[in-house]
């Protein structure tokens, strides 16, 4: 958090699935998972889960992040993708799961994919010297609130602002050659090597690499995947201490 103090032109994008899951349990509706026909395991996003996402991210996580930044003299404003229609998404209408050996379509699913980010609102706030703190959910063109992946929001925000660098800070020091060995960080992935890396990666890392690709495609200069749990994660990541993708 201290790392953001004094840095101009920053946008902080956050997720918060731990908060969502914890609140879901408190509300007696723990997260449900499903497996797609191609074996990807995902969190179910039926209306009750989306309500939990809104409460946890737009409510709890964002307010505490903005308050914590404020205590360090950083003037921040929390925005979900719904605010000012900042993040327009397309609702996934064809989410399928395997249930009792059959393929079913989850017709009530409210997850989406990011389509566009409206940079004008972000530039307006940045112009006022404010750090935008952005998180899910997003909104469709018809005005339906849908949940979207925070890393993809980050990629599109960075692209929309023509950012030089997108930092994806996470609980691992970067793309690991050997997932169980934290010292096996791959220092550099060239853009053309990304599809292979995505293929080999699993879980959250697969999605981060996917987001990195989207960011480069949207014109971002470079993406660094680096550790968040250390003293100055931003400075270290900017210095390339992680996996740099360009």
């Amino acid at each position, binding site marked *: 958090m201290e790392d953001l103090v004094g840095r101009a032109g920053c946008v902080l994008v956050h997720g918060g699935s731990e908060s969502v899951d914890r609140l879901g349990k408190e509300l007696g509706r723990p997260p449900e998972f499903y497996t797609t026909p191609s074996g990807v395991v*995902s*969190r179910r996003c039926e209306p009750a889960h989306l309500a939990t996402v809104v409460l946890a991210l737009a409510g709890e996580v964002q307010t505490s992040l903005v308050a914590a930044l404020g205590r360090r003299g950083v003037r921040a404003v929390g925005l979900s993708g719904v605010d000012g229609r900042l993040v327009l998404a397309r609702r*996934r209408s064809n989410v399928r799961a395997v249930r009792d050996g*059959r393929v079913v*379509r989850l017709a009530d699913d409210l997850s989406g*994919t990011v389509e566009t980010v409206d940079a004008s609102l972000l530039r307006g706030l940045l112009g006022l010297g404010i750090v935008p703190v952005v998180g899910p959910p997003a909104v469709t063109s018809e005005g339906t609130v849908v949940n979207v*992946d925070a890393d993809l929001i980050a990629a599109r925000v960075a692209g929309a602002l023509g950012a030089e660098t997108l930092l994806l800070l996470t609980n691992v020091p970067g793309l690991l050659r050997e997932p169980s060995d934290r010292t096996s960080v791959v220092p550099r992935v060239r853009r053309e090597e990304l599809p292979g890396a995505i293929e080999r990666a699993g879980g959250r890392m697969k999605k981060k690499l996917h987001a990195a690709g989207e960011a480069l495609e949207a014109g971002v200069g470079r993406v660094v995947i680096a550790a968040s749990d250390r003293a100055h994660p931003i400075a270290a990541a900017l210095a390339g201490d992680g996996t740099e993708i360009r």
Partner: protein
Amino acid sequence: MTECPVCAADVESKDKIAGEVFPCVDCGTELEVRALEPFAVEPAPKEAEDWGE
């Protein structure tokens, strides 16, 4: 029992589950169970399967 909305072939409801997606035995169109009582099917959306969230 109902009919395939594309080729009018018979579509069996036996042991189908709600939301199930399956091919019409005649024309192969992907159909989706929209209701069990009464049994109703519609062509399933065609979009490619997306990433999980």
